C-alpha cells in the first residue's frame, strides 16, 4: 500500500495545477496520469489559447504544457507517475491503479480527481463506419502521431472544438468540406469561426447529419436542414463527398471513477451532463474528495487551471490546517467568477447556480450587434464600421483593426501593445477598443491574438496602393516580392498583391506576420492570403 497526503488523478491542466498548489503548500503529492505524457487536452492544442494572460493565454497549448511540466518537476514533494491508470476509488478512501502490468493500492489523506471529459457520440445511420472519428481522435492522429486523419473531412459541430480542429486540419494539409451545426447559430467563439471562413470553409447552421455512406470506410454523407424547432425539413437533404466525418458534438465529464466513491451527481446539461456535486472550493460530498477541470464542468483550460489550484489548496487546508491559504483561495474564486461573468459564460453560470446556488454577477450588456456574424462567421459592414478610425486618422498613420466583436473571456491583446493603445479591460470579457491617438500600427499585437483577429492597415500613401499586415500560419510561407492571392472574409479570391515583408523570427513563434501591398479599395476586404502554388 502506497501512502501520501494527496493523490491527484489525471495529469491535464487541472490535475497539474492541483498538484502544484498542494505541493507548494508542503503536501506529499502523488500525481497519476494514464498516458505516457502529462498535459491532457493541451498536448494536442497547437493553437494559441484564448483566456487570461495570467493563465498563459496567447501561448500555444503545447507550450503551456511545457511550462507546467517544468513547474511541477521542480517540486520535490510531488511524485509523477505516468502510464498509470486509476481504476477505482472506494468508500474507505483507498484507490487502485494499474501501472506497468501491476495493480497498486494507494491510501492518501485526500484525493483530487481531474480526469477530464469524454466525447459525445451521435446516432445516425452507419455512424460506426471507419472514418467516423471523434474530434479528439483526429487531433491525436495528426498532432501527436503526425498522421493525416483523412483528405476531405466533414466536421459535425461548430463549437470551439469543431472550429479549432477544422483549422488544425487545414494546417496539417487536409481539406475541410464544411462544418455543420444543428443550432441556427455558430456555437463557438466567432473569431475562431471567422478564421476558418476566410480559408473558404463553409459553415452550415440549422443542419444535421442523417447518414454516412460507404462500404468499408466513409465516402460521403447525407445532410439535412432543420427548421427553427430543430425538426428535419422534408426534401432538404443534400449529400457531400468526404472520406471522414469528424464528430465535435460536445463532451461529457468522465465521472466513471467516482461511481463507487459515494460521490453524488446531478444532471446539469449546461455543465456537460452528469456532474459531481461540489461546493465553491471544489469539495464533493465525500470528505477529502475534491474535483477540478472538465470533470466538474466542461469549460476551458483557464478555468481548469484555476479550479485545480482551488482543489489543491482546499485539500492542503484540510490536511494541514493552520496555513494561511484562504487569501489565495478567495483570489482564485474571484478570478473564476470574473472569467464566467461575460455573455459566453452565461451557460456555465446558469449551470453552476443549479449546482451550488452560487450567485454570479450579471453580465455587462452586449456592446455590438453580432446576429448576422453569429450565423455566418463573417463580420458585417456595420460590425467593421464600429472598429475603424475616422477618415482623417486613416490618412495620418497606419492603424490596427481588431475584428473581435463578441465578448469572450480573453485578454492577451491588451497586454501586448507596447504603446498602451488597447484600452485596459475592467473585465476580462471586455471588447478591445483601440485608442487611435496612441496606436502606431506597429503590428506587435497581431501574432498574439488567439483569434487571429487583428490586422494592420496602412493607407497613408497617395495613389491606389495600400498595405495590409496579417497573421499567417500555413505552409508554404510566402517570400518577399512574391505575388499572392488575396482572400476576403469568406475565402473568395478578390485579387492579387505583392508581399512586402515576412516576419518569422522565434519571437513570432510560427505565427508569421506578412505585409502585402494591395489596391487601396481592398484594405477592408482582404483578411487572408494564399500562396500561389508553383506547378
Amino acid at each position, binding site marked *: 500500500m502506497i501512502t501520501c497526503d494527496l493523490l491527484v488523478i489525471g495529469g491535464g491542466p487541472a490535475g497539474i495545477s492541483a498538484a502544484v498548489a498542494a505541493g507548494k503548500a508542503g503536501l506529499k503529492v502523488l500525481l497519476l496520469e494514464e498516458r505516457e505524457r502529462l498535459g491532457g487536452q493541451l498536448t494536442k492544442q497547437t493553437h494559441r489559447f484564448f483566456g487570461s494572460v495570467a493563465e498563459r493565454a496567447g501561448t500555444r497549448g503545447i507550450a503551456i504544457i511545457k511550462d507546467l511540466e517544468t513547474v511541477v518537476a521542480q517540486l520535490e514533494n510531488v511524485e509523477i507517475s505516468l502510464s498509470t491508470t486509476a481504476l477505482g476509488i472506494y468508500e474507505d478512501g483507498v484507490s487502485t491503479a494499474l501501472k506497468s502490468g501491476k495493480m497498486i493500492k494507494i491510501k492518501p489523506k485526500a484525493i483530487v480527481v481531474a480526469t477530464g471529459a469524454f466525447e459525445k457520440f451521435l446516432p445516425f445511420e452507419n455512424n460506426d*463506419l*471507419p*472514418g467516423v472519428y471523434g474530434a479528439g*481522435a483526429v487531433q491525436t492522429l495528426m498532432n501527436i502521431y503526425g498522421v493525416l486523419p483523412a483528405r476531405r473531412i466533414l466536421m459535425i459541430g461548430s463549437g470551439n472544438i469543431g472550429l479549432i480542429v477544422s483549422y488544425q486540419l487545414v494546417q496539417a494539409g487536409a481539406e475541410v468540406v464544411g462544418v455543420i451545426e444543428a443550432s441556427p447559430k455558430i456555437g463557438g467563439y466567432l473569431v475562431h469561426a471567422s478564421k476558418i471562413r476566410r480559408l473558404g470553409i463553409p459553415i452550415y447552421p440549422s443542419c444535421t447529419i442523417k447518414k454516412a455512406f460507404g462500404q468499408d470506410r466513409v465516402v460521403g454523407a447525407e445532410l439535412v436542414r432543420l427548421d427553427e424547432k430543430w425538426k428535419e425539413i422534408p426534401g432538404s437533404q443534400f449529400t457531400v463527398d468526404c472520406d471522414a466525418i469528424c464528430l465535435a458534438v460536445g463532451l461529457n465529464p468522465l465521472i466513471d471513477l467516482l461511481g463507487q466513491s459515494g460521490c453524488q451527481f446531478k444532471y446539469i446539461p449546461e455543465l456537460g451532463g452528469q456532474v459531481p456535486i461540489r461546493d465553491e472550493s471544489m469539495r464533493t460530498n465525500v470528505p477529502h474528495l475534491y474535483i477540478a477541470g472538465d470533470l466538474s464542468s466542461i469549460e476551458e483550460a483557464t478555468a481548469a487551471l484555476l479550479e485545480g489550484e482551488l482543489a489543491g489548496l482546499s485539500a492542503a487546508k484540510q490536511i494541514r490546517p493552520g496555513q494561511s491559504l484562504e487569501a489565495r483561495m478567495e483570489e482564485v474564486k474571484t478570478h473564476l467568477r470574473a472569467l464566467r461573468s461575460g455573455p459566453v459564460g452565461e451557460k456555465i453560470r446558469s449551470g453552476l447556480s443549479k449546482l451550488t446556488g452560487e450567485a454570479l454577477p450579471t453580465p455587462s450588456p452586449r456592446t455590438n450587434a453580432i446576429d448576422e456574424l453569429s450565423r455566418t462567421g463573417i463580420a458585417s459592414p456595420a460590425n467593421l464600421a464600429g472598429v475603424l478610425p475616422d477618415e482623417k486618422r486613416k490618412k495620418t498613420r497606419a492603424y490596427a483593426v481588431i475584428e473581435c466583436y463578441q465578448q469572450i473571456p480573453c485578454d492577451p491583446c491588451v497586454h501586448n501593445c507596447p504603446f498602451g493603445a488597447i484600452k485596459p479591460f475592467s473585465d476580462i470579457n471586455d471588447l478591445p477598443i483601440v485608442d487611435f491617438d496612441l496606436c502606431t500600427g506597429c503590428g506587435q499585437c497581431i501574432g498574439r491574438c488567439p483569434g487571429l483577429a487583428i490586422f494592420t492597415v496602412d493607407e497613408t500613401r497617395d495613389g491606389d496602393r495600400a498595405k495590409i499586415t496579417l497573421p499567417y500560419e500555413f505552409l508554404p510561407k510566402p517570400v518577399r516580392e512574391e505575388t499572392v492571392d488575396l482572400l476576403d472574409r469568406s475565402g473568395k479570391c478578390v485579387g492579387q498583391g505583392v508581399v512586402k515583408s515576412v516576419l518569422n523570427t522565434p519571437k513570432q513563434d510560427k505565427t508569421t506576420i506578412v505585409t502585402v501591398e494591395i489596391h487601396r479599395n481592398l484594405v477592408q476586404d482582404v483578411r487572408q492570403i494564399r500562396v500561389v502554388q508553383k506547378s
Partner: protein
Amino acid sequence: MRISEHPILSFRQNKEVHFTFDGKEVTGYEGDTIVSALHALGIWKLSESPVHRRPRGLFCAIGHCSSCLMRVNGVPNVRSCVTPIEEGMVVESQNPRGDLYDHV
C-alpha cells in the same frame, strides 16, 4: 498518409519498426501505436463488429471507446489505439470477437 511538413509542429522520423497485420509485413515508426501506423498506411478497417460483422475503425484514439479492439500476439481485445508497435508484433483483425479459449 504521414504529414511531411507542418507549420507549427515538427515530426521526427524515428526508427522503422516492422510488424505484421493479418499476415502481411508492414512498417511503422518508433513511437507509433498500432492504429497510427496502420492508419498512415491507409488501413482504416481494423476489425469487424462482434454481432453484425460491420467494419470497425478507430473512434476515440485514447483507449476509451473499444472501437479498435484487435488481436495482438494472440491476445484478443487489445486496444490498438493505445498499444505501441513493437518489432515482430503479430497484429490481427478480431473477427468477430476474441475467444476465451485460444489463449489459455
